[in-house]
């Protein structure tokens, strides 16, 4: 079974600075996807960024980027120029590659990010 581990229950960052959230995973599959989801106090799950395992290039979405280390099974999220609106719980998640049962997600336990003004 796949597992996802987030070892930082809480992190804090000053506004405009950079923060990195850590995630490790365990799988025997070669075809899979990794995700970072943001959950603000509204509870809505918002997809931040997605990485396909077969792509060597790290995914980037505006101020959000990942450091995907496939051999080490590590998938960290870097938030640059942090903004107050980035404060939220962040979840790392895994799903197998294309299969007939859809994209079932396995989540880590989350990292609560605080942004200080």
């Amino acid at each position: 079974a796949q597992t996802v581990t987030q070892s930082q229950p809480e992190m804090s960052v000053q506004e405009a600075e950079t923060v990195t959230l850590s995630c490790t995973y365990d799988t025997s599959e070669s075809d899979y996807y990794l995700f970072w989801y943001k959950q603000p106090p509204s509870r809505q799950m918002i997809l931040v960024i997605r990485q396909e395992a077969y792509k060597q290039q790290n995914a980037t979405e505006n101020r959000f980027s990942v450091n995907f280390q496939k051999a080490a099974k590590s998938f960290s999220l870097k938030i640059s120029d942090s903004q107050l609106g980035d404060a939220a719980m962040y979840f790392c998640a895994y799903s197998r590659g294309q299969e007939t049962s859809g994209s079932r997600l396995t989540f880590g336990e989350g990292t609560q990010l605080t942004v200080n003004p």
Partner: protein
Amino acid sequence: NAGVTQTPKFRILKIGQSMTLQCAQDMNHNYMYWYRQDPGMGLKLIYYSVGAGITDKGEVPNGYNVSRSTTEDFPLRLELAAPSQTSVYFCASSPPGKNEQFFGPGTRLTVL
């Protein structure tokens, strides 16, 4: 498009009561999922469906039932509510060929 909708937003149940959490999506997605999120934890998969008439268990199915009679709807049934089922429940859907899930706003359920 409304996306994924869930009703109710909040509910308090007494131990032993039953209820159905409703989920609907208007994106014509084949795949639908139910997750639960306990306080301070990540989401865990309860049940999922690959299409109308087809459902399967996820990681934590005990105490729940589902049905999928149409592409749009995927209700979750709690037959005998227990305090351990106090949680936030999320429904999600995804289209075939894309590993991206669209989440509903969640239902906060308290069992007393």
